[in-house]
């Protein structure tokens, strides 16, 4: 018997009992919809958490810092002290590695900014190539990035303003919950680049002063007019102050947090130019020195940000770079943990949905059984006039498969609708049905239905033709 004929017969016997067929399909539809919707919810949650990781500094980024080397690296005896530092050649080496999309350097800098009575201690300021910064496509609340070749200008994250402290070092925002009265763009701000000298001057003054209040007043004076702090010792010369303009403040309210919020940025070239002027003949802050105290000719970066082509390759590449002797950090473990969590979440939610599909499967088995009892005579006649046993079994399996297909298709449509409504109501993408689930859910529904129809179909096949034609 041809497949098309069998399918046609199965179809017409389904049409004969429209209401019953519809109810059975409805069962499968609800079963499929509940599984797919639950999986969609799990997928949505997974994506949301991955987005969160993205905000915390990227899913495909490995942060490389200078290392202390490993056993293999130190056997050389006369080890180069700069071997595990991050130079341009390190950057080139990493760029040549497989799965590396791009690498960009960061030079971390320190600075003290004073504005009125407030002090902002910047450590871990991020100096990067200007084009890298511009590539971030961050939004500004005010201003924008400086232009190539401009003198040094700062760009502040939206939460940097919360870091302002009073002269004693108490951070205002954390103590009072109020933001200091400083306009990052317009207020007069003095910047001290030589933070070591600043610290030295401060501790020197503290030693010299008898009381706390005195210290603080001296401190303020020292800060406002460096030369005024005429200490007893010449060692702690007051640091020079600069007026460095603010190029912009990045967008965000005081409770918006993302990867740039707490950081101060500037163009690396501009910073180095300013440093070289300020620290003539000396090593600029943060750079290593030779044994004789002279600076190296090349520049060493604080960290390299390595962008990997695929999330899946992050962990392997991180290990590879780590084995070269550098310190590495990435979100890969977090991501792995997150994935594990979302997998179990998906399994749990999918399992809840699966219960209703199981109920639907029992419904199919019941419907098929009923149908066979009802059509015993008919099956008998078909056998008598020469319908093969396999064909009879397949007729019922196809019937079950058709119920599964209809239920799968409508169930998928229903779950798409439900997800759409959920997303509408929550106002975010809480539930996402990935495209692969479209096909899978329908195939799955067909398979489950055919499995449920298997036992009844066996029964139909093994019905005795003689018994069957006798029954009425």
């Amino acid at each position, binding site marked *: 018997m041809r497949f098309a004929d069998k399918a046609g017969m199965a179809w*017409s016997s389904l*049409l*004969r009992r429209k209401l019953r067929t519809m109810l059975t399909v409805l069962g499968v539809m609800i079963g499929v919809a509940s599984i797919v919707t639950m999986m969609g919810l799990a997928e949505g949650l997974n994506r949301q958490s991955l987005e969160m990781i993205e905000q915390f500094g990227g899913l495909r980024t490995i942060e490389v810092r200078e290392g202390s080397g490993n056993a293999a690296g130190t056997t050389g005896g006369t080890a180069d002290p700069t071997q595990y530092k991050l130079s341009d050649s390190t950057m080139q080496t990493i760029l040549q590695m497989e799965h590396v999309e791009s690498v960009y350097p960061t030079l971390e800098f320190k600075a003290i900014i004073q504005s009125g009575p407030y002090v902002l201690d910047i450590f871990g300021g991020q100096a990067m190539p200007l084009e890298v910064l511009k590539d971030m496509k961050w939004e500004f609340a005010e201003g924008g990035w400086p232009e190539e070749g401009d003198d040094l200008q700062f760009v502040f994250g939206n939460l940097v303003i919360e870091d302002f402290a009073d002269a004693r070092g108490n951070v205002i925002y954390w103590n009072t919950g109020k933001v200091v009265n400083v306009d990052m763009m317009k207020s007069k701000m003095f910047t001290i680049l030589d933070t070591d000298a600043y610290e030295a001057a401060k501790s020197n003054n503290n030693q010299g002063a008898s009381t706390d209040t005195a210290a603080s007043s001296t401190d303020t004076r020292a800060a406002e007019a460096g030369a005024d702090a005429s200490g007893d010792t010449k060692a702690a010369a007051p640091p020079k102050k600069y007026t460095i303009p603010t190029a912009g403040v990045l967008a965000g309210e005081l409770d918006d947090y993302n990867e740039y919020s707490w950081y101060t940025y500037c163009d690396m070239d501009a910073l180095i130019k300013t440093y070289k002027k300020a620290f003539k003949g000396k090593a600029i802050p943060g750079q290593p020195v030779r044994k004789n105290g002279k600076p190296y000719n090349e520049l060493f970066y604080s960290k390299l940000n390595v962008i990997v082509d695929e999330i899946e390759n992050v962990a392997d590449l991180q290990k590879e770079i780590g084995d070269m002797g550098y310190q590495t950090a990435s979100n890969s473990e977090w991501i792995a943990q997150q994935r594990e969590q979302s997998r179990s979440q998906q399994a749990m939610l999918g399992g809840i949905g699966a219960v209703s599909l199981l109920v639907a499967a029992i419904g199919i088995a019941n419907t098929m059984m009923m149908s066979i009892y009802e059509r015993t005579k008919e099956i008998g*006649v*078909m056998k008598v*006039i*020469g319908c093969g*046993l396999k*064909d009879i079994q397949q007729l019922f399996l196809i019937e079950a498969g058709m119920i599964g297909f209809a239920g799968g298709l409508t169930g998928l449509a229903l779950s798409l609708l439900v997800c759409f409504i959920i997303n509408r109501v929550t106002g975010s993408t809480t539930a996402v049905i990935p495209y692969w689930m479209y096909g899978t859910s329908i195939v799955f529904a067909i398979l489950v239905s055919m499995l449920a129809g298997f036992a009844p179909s066996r029964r139909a096949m093994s019905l005795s033709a003689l018994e069957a034609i006798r029954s009425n």
Partner: protein
Amino acid sequence: MDETVISGRKIYKIFKLGEERVRALNGVSLDVKKGEFVAIVGTSGSGKSTLLNMLAGLDRPTKGEVIIGGNHIEKMSEDQLVRFRREHVGFIFQAYDLLPQLDAIENVALPLSFRGMGKKERTAQAVKLLKQVGLEKYMKHRPTEMSGGQQQRVGIARALVVKPEIIFADEPTGNLDTKTTIEVLHMLQEVVHGKGNTLVMVTHDRHLAGYADRRIHIVDGEVVLED
């Protein structure tokens, strides 16, 4: 024309009813020749239907031989029996037993579809046979839209469409009124005498058996008379 199509040799069929053994057939032997219209006549419970089932390859005898066209029915498996029926046998049922969801053409073409014949070809053959039984106007009708006589004519067409070596009919007129009964019996006679088919009909009615060429009377599982 003297070729033997069906040959039954000492057929026994014993049913177990609890502890009791019932001999439905008790050593029946018979021959049916090609082109013959044979009636198996007996009262209810005489074993006539059981005999028909044996001869048609629907059931296997407990003992004895059934040879149809050279094939030993009693040795066949269930699968082989189905194939045998598909290739060699046509059936006419008392209650017509048409498939309710199919129209007349589809019902007649059904046995051909079991053989894997394409739709176009089998529809053409079904149409031809429906014309022969005089149902030109009812080709697209479903069984529920036809009278008993019309349904049985569809049943006859369905039996003939496979060009069977033998046709079996189990009380083919049992559900029909007298007038239609005679019409159907005339049609069966025509099928045998006009086309040279072999027909074995089971009936309890001696009068109806009169339409056959030969009658085999069965009482309590034994052949008592042939005339």
